[in-house]
């Protein structure tokens, strides 16, 4: 029942945004919708925590991991909306965008969130594919929001590469239907039914099907060879959108890959899927680690660090056992810290009007609060003690060292490389002399609040986990 409320409230907000002319109302409605969604998602999470999987209708089905993702989407979505109100106000004040753009922004943002919720909670793989396709389409316009040539180029590449990826994913999902005669459930096949009668499927076909799914949805997750669209899209999109994109959308696509992994594991033994996940994970960590070293723009830097973290999560699920729990924690922490960092980079963009690291100097003097939070966020994302990511990385490595010692050692040094690269750019931006033409004005509290709240949540979560969250994580870990 709550899911319906979630979806309906968001689509209602989108509708109102279309009709109403007044900007204040649009913003207010979207925020209210997001608040409702957040409350509903907590209720759903509680329900799933104590009463197991929850399937209100035939086409909706939420398992433990799904409810975790819903919680994350709701939380990050709320932060993004709260952040985008002052962000867009500052942008319109600086005459970068007009009112129609802002209207379009809120419509597409709400549609995007609806699509994501549908993708997670849909019970049929095809419905999940359709909603993922919907997310791509809705974000395509958001990426070309500033309609500069570079934004156009990024949007076009995003559209084409993701459509190709999803078509391959579509082919993969179709191949899973070989052993099911279309008669049962009037042709409406859900994950469960796929899982049950997967036994008499031809193993070779299952392998190829999983390869298509992994490469297809892998483009959405941004795993290595298919990651090329990610840095362009995330650096050109407005900050709240790129926060949602890299914080949450990547994990949604990953969850779908994991559900397919679950089905293939019943047909053939786990080693095949795990070696694939590990190899893609390692390649993405390697590539992102080396490219982060000399980066020119800080938003691309954050995009590459998302690729690296998705690589580590894939590694975690690939190693299995204890690493799965650590990977789930890593998903939660990453999808909370990364949006905070994107919001802060948005602030930097507003004050310095340039995404280049070279022109951002002496941020500690110009925007003290933002730069302190940026440094804290940097230490959180690259894994420094008080924050949980340090621990989850270590646990993943310790589970993995027994399976692939050489791989883990290479990855440890790659993460050190990432730390060095990221750290070089962070110090270049925060310390140093303030460029003369940047004037010092008071920082708007609303611009800083969302990232502050997110970082505090991460800090709390890395030490104390609420009980229902723990049960959710453990049940999810058992299944995957």
């Amino acid at each position, binding site marked *: 029942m709550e899911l319906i409320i979630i979806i309906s409230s968001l689509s209602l907000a989108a509708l109102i945004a279309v009709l109403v002319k007044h900007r204040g109302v649009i913003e207010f409605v979207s925020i209210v919708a997001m608040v409702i969604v957040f409350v509903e998602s907590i209720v759903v999470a509680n329900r799933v925590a104590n009463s197991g999987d929850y399937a209100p209708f035939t086409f909706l089905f939420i398992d433990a991991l799904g409810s975790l993702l819903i919680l994350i989407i709701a939380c990050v979505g709320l932060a993004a909306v709260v952040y985008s109100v002052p962000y867009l106000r500052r942008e319109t004040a600086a005459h970068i965008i007009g009112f129609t753009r802002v209207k379009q922004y809120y419509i597409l943002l709400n549609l995007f969130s609806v699509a994501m919720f549908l993708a997670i909670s849909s019970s*049929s793989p*095809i*419905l999940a594919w*359709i909603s993922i*396709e*919907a997310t791509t*389409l809705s974000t*395509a*316009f958001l990426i*070309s929001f500033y*309609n500069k*040539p*570079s934004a*156009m*180029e*990024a*949007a*076009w*590449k995003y*559209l*084409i590469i993701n*459509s*190709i990826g999803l*078509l391959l994913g*579509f*082919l993969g999902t*179709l*191949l899973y*239907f*070989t052993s099911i005669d*279309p008669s049962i459930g*009037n*042709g*409406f096949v859900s994950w469960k039914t796929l899982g049950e009668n997967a036994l008499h499927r*031809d193993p*070779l*076909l299952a*392998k*190829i099907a999983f390869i298509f799914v992994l490469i297809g949805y892998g483009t959405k997750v941004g795993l290595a060879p298919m990651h090329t669209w990610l*840095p*362009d899209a995330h650096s*050109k999109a407005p900050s709240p959108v790129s926060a949602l994109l890299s914080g949450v959308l990547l994990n949604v696509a990953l969850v779908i890959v994991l559900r397919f992994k679950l089905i293939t594991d019943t047909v053939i033994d786990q080693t095949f899927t795990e070696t694939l996940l590990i190899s893609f994970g390692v390649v993405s960590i390697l590539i992102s680690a080396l*490219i982060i070293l000399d*980066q*020119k723009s800080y938003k*691309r830097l954050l995009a590459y660090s998302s690729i690296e973290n998705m690589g580590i999560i894939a590694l975690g699920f690939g190693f299995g056992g204890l690493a799965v729990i650590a990977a789930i924690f890593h998903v939660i922490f990453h999808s909370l810290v990364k949006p905070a960092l994107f919001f802060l980079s948005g602030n930097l963009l507003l004050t310095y009007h340039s995404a280049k690291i070279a022109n951002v100097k002496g941020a500690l003097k110009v925007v003290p609060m933002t730069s302190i939070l940026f440094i804290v966020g940097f230490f959180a994302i690259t894994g420094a003690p008080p924050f949980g990511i340090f621990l989850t990385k270590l646990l993943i490595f310790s589970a993995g060292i027994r399976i692939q010692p050489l791989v883990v050692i290479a990855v440890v040094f790659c993460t050190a490389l990432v730390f060095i690269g990221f750290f070089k750019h962070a110090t270049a931006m925060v310390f140093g002399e303030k460029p003369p033409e940047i004037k010092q004005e008071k920082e708007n509290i609303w611009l800083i609040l969302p990232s502050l709240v997110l970082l505090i949540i991460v800090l709390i979560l890395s030490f104390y986990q609420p009980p229902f969250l723990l049960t959710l994580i453990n049940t999810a870990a058992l299944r995957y």
Partner: protein
Amino acid sequence: MNITFLQFLLGVLFLSIIYLHLARKNFEAVVAYAVQSSAITVLLFASFLETNSIYLLFVVLVTLVVKAIFGPVFFFRLIQKHKLTYSVSTYLNMPLALIIIAVFTAISRFQQFSPLTNIIPANHALLSLALAAIFTSLFLIINRKDAISQAIGVLSMENSIVAFAIFAGLEQSPMLQLGIVFDIFIWLIIATVFISMIYRHFGSLDTSTMKHLKD
């Protein structure tokens, strides 16, 4: 609907993709796409005749409207508006492209792809041809520099996947197929809007000029 007729339809599909590779003018490319999608609708109609459920008929109608009519119309309007008669050149010259297409058809017959092609052992040849169609349309996107032909490449890949599904007996419940077609419809609208915006920004549809998002 005997097997030879289905084979003929698949042949039409495959030839249209090859023609897309060779097309000089955008107009010819759009016409090829129209032919292709009509072949797919006929295929769907053939599978409707076997199961004759009303929904399937409705799906066939919708696909006909969306793929065979709306797509080409949008593209034609686009070509007239900006007078983009000539399509931008390709990366590889003609003979080399044909050789690669031949290679792809050979690959799809390989032993590695056997589990794919003999889901239903009877139409092994048809399935391998459909697979080759998928790979060639993917190669089309790589080869052409023109934005329109890239969009058409994506759409033709979608058509060949649907064809593969039909021959492998995997087609979905009509309701889901409707969703997919509706998705393609929105994709079409967005693609045309994007292409016109590219034209406005870059002055030509040559996507190889879009190179400055290097690292």
